[in-house]
């Protein structure tokens, strides 16, 4: 018995970094993913154009991870790996200097700074700022593929550049990301899927009467995921993910993929002064439909 206890104790001293690594969903390639990738290769070989692949495949579910109180998923999309020279010189210089976060007050300034042409939404550009992100347009450049902040030694070599903004539309808070994967992104991991948001369980607290806050977490977070293809009114390929809890409640995430950039749209909250919960699925569709090309590029 002592040997057993000793071994279990010894394992507690294993490097914390390794423990974290094992906490993340394992990289895997679903059968569907393999089929899609093979089909994509065949399609490329036959047509020789990336555009054809985008139109055919859009966005698909990759791996799904589920345990008692944790759920996660990934999406596979025809994203590009952008060469760093495709971003603006200013952005490249900032990365070299180690400046990691940028905030812009207007779309045009942000777009010029990023350099890679992005889809524009007048609806979102003119909407009131949401609470989630403290800048009208934020640009983040120190991110791994799954949006984890990377270690200092990886400064200047982000796996993705992300534009983020938050808006209030129809009394709901909506977060929007445009994800541009760089030449530094792990090609194999990209093929397996880009990790989506896995929402944590609802946490509740009570007071024990002595001023101590007790942790009372009773709401499990087991969700099932499904993805419906969606083509916007402007003909852009995308999909809407539905995350369904065991109790029947649903959340939605909209995805678009255009010119190799992946767009993420999540309507997730209602403004405090508004009691009626809007139809978030319809709202997600409305926001996806609002995206279009700006035409002139910086």
């Amino acid at each position: 018995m002592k040997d057993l206890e000793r071994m279990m104790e010894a394992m507690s001293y294993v490097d914390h970094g390794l423990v974290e690594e094992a906490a993340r969903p394992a990289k895997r390639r679903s059968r569907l993913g393999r089929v899609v990738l093979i089909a994509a290769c065949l399609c490329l070989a036959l047509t020789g154009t990336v555009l054809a692949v985008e139109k055919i495949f859009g966005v698909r579910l990759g791996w799904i991870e589920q345990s008692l109180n944790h759920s996660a998923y990934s999406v596979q999309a025809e994203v590009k790996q952008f060469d760093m020279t495709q971003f603006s010189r200013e952005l490249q210089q900032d990365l070299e200097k180690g400046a990691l976060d940028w905030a812009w007050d207007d779309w045009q300034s942000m777009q010029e700074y990023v350099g890679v042409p992005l889809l524009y939404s007048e609806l979102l550009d003119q909407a009131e700022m949401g609470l989630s992100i403290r800048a009208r347009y934020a640009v983040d450049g120190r991110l791994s593929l799954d949006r984890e902040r990377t270690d200092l030694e990886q400064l200047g070599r982000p796996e993705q550049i992300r534009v983020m903004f938050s808006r209030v539309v129809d009394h709901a808070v909506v977060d929007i990301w445009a994800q541009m994967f760089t030449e530094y992104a792990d090609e194999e991991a990209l093929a397996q899927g880009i990790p989506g948001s896995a929402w944590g369980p609802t946490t509740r607290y009570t007071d024990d009467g002595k001023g101590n806050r007790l942790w009372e977490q009773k709401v499990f977070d087991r969700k099932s995921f499904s993805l419906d293809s969606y083509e916007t009114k402007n003909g852009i390929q995308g999909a809407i993910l539905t995350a369904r809890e065991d109790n029947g409640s649903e959340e939605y995430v909209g995805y678009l993929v255009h010119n190799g950039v992946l767009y993420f749209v999540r309507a997730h909250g209602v403004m405090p002064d508004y009691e009626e919960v809007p139809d978030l699925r319809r709202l997600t569709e409305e926001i996806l439909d609002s995206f279009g090309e700006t035409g002139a590029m910086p």
Partner: protein
Amino acid sequence: MTDKKLVELYWERREEALERTQEQYGAWCRTIARNILDQEQDVEECLSDSLLSLWNAIPPARPLHFQGYLGAVVRNRALLIRKRRGKQEDTVSLAALELAECLPHTDGPEQKVEAEVLGQVVSEFLKGQKEDLRIVFLRRYWYADSVEEAAKHMGWSVGKAKSVLFRMRKKLKVYLEQEGWL
């Protein structure tokens, strides 16, 4: 919120640190505790104790890998409660039994120090393995997943997981022999 920022909150002694920790890692910690403890009451006790331990440990600690550090606190606490509850025939015992085959058989006052050093040696061994191999190893022997759960985590068949774990234990035994532990 990044882990670095979270650690800063602990250093600033802001209670928000506990709230954020629960939001970001509550479910994960609960899974670790549940894998080791079978009574929900014990799981609750473990989680409350772990948060208190964390609050007391940071500062002075400034963990480089906050999540892993937190996981180790929860795991240690769960093992202590489990020990208090007495012998249990479950997946944790089975995992420990499998792994104990690789170990030297000694008892003594130096046991705690030895466990710490042994943990570091196991870490070095794991760092020399391919990523998927070390992950399945830790799923089974750190997180105390059943073989079926570890296989599911990896997207493997149960047979493959069993086979890989068997080979890993053999390799670990050889490694410990080379390092002078056996």
